[in-house]
């Protein structure tokens, strides 16, 4: 009950943020906050795969990028409606995950890390070699998607839509984790051999998890293309996968809000440090080291210990 109240309180505070920022004339930060939420969404998808499914995947950028490119390409082809383009972007990411997962899930451990990375890099190099996808320069959006009756051209509206989608995804994933399917995932994390022995189709269960996490990243990608005004190759690059993984570790692997906390902490830290020093990456690295050493369950774990 208490937790529910805290969650609703936080959600309302987050919803009020653009109004506060506007009243202070800091409109720039609405865009920044939207970015935070978008990365929180992508990292939440990855956290579902890594933390709930127990699969350390190093190719999440592929699904994030596919979502963005799907929106950009559809727009280039004349489809502006978010009602159509965003579900298609999610579907494209899910389909890619289905194919990649079906192959990759035959391996495990380090091999799984390597093969997901390899697939993601293949997609990266394919996309930058495609003229119609903008090559190295990426693909600009003519304007933001239309989401009638809402006007996404308004920064605050895009922020609210992103917030609503993040909240909805968090809620749905939470339901999923507590469902019978989720209990099978929990069993898999602890003992795959035993799950097999009592008759679970282990690889199918993992594949579903992989696809769900990727679909969430696809949605985040669609949002990022709108926020950035373009789909860019850097979104597909392996460093992006690494960054998302860092967010999950920082926030707390397998924690409900691990992805959200990690994204806010990492991007927030970069933003703040970027203002005072040129070596912000160094200090971000130090911060990560500190978390890994002193808070092995991430920021979410610290929080839980306080209580």
């Amino acid at each position, binding site marked *: 009950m208490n937790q529910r109240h805290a969650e609703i309180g936080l959600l309302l505070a987050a919803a009020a943020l653009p109004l506060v920022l506007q009243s202070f004339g800091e409109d720039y930060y609405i865009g920044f906050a939207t970015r935070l939420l978008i990365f929180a969404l992508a990292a939440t998808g990855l956290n579902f795969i890594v933390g709930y499914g127990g699969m350390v995947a190093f190719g999440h950028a592929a699904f994030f990028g596919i979502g963005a490119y799907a929106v950009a390409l559809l727009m280039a082809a004349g489809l502006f409606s978010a009602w159509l383009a965003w579900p298609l972007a999610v579907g494209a990411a899910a389909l890619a995950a289905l194919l990649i997962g079906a192959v990759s899930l035959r391996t495990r451990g380090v091999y799984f890390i390597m093969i997901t990375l390899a697939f993601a890099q293949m997609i990266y190099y394919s996309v930058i070699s495609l003229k119609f996808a903008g090559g190295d320069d990426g693909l600009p959006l003519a304007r933001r998607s239309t989401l009638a009756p809402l006007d996404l051209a308004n920064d605050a509206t895009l922020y609210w839509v992103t917030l609503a989608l993040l909240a909805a995804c968090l809620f749905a994933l939470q*339901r*999923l984790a*507590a*469902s*019978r*399917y*989720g*209990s*099978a995932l*929990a*069993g898999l994390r*602890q*003992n795959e*051999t*035993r*799950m*097999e*022995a*009592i*008759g*679970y*189709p*282990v690889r199918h269960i993992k594949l579903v998890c992989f696809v769900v996490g990727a679909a969430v990243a696809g949605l985040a990608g669609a949002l990022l293309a709108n926020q950035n005004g373009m789909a860019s190759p850097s979104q597909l690059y392996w460093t992006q996968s690494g960054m998302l993984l860092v967010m999950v570790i920082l926030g707390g692997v397998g924690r409900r809000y691990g992805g959200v906390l990690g994204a806010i902490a990492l991007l927030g830290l970069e933003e703040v440090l970027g203002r005072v020093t040129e070596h912000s990456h160094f200090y971000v690295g130090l911060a990560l080291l500190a978390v890994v050493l002193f808070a092995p369950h991430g920021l979410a774990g610290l929080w839980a210990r306080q209580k």
Partner: protein
Amino acid sequence: MGTTEVTALLEIAGLKRHFGGLWATNGVDLTLEAGEIHALIGPNGAGKTTLIHLISGALLPDAGTLHFAGADITRCNMHERVARGITRSYQITQIFPQLSLLENVRLAVQARRRDWGSSLRFWRPASADVQMIAEAGDWLGRVGLAAAAGQLAGDVSHGERRALELAMALATRPRLLLLDEPLAGMGPEEAEHMTRLIAGLRKHAGPPQVFPGPQGGERRAATLSGGAFNGEQTVLLVEHDMDIVFRLADRISVLVAGRIIASGAPAAVRENQEVRRAYLGDEL
């Protein structure tokens, strides 16, 4: 059921499997009859566990066939075999250490029902299915663990974990139960408890005995009747302790170096010269 006709539940023919240059299973022919407790004995490294792997589908054979209840299952994977009614235990304990005993067994019940694949599987909380949880509690009671239902599986004793594994295997309601050294590493008391549990699986007539629990007795009997305890439970038991083998087994097969060198009623196997030479020698 009234007939006493013996029917083959599992038929293994010419089964082979190698690891590198070693034929761990080297031409095994074996028939398990419905309702029997069949003991598989043999020295260390004889290939007993490998044979269990091959029957359960954890390994696929290089040659030979497996027929279960008339159907060819040679290429079936593990979960297909569980669905057909073959469930195994492991020589080394395999549990979910961070889950309660109840949740351990509930996962097995859920696996059997296969309704985690229904339309509600992704949305409805697992904790809302009281019937499934009650059934899991019944199975725990059946192996004497009702009082420990809420404890984490990682926190209970070795003997209790082995009993938990039996409850999980039974909760899938197998027609054929494969037990790989279920008494390994147990003290005398725990071993005696487990032996009684296994003996209780044989030709069990009438409604099952259930330990008293929080739920009403009638429903409990309803959930447990049929399935595992209708006298159809066939068991393949790997065990080293000869006293227990002779106490439990209807038939015994002796595996040496990947081959079955003798198979038959306990008395006959005990008298078999080849078996005495190869294996039982000093024990009898």
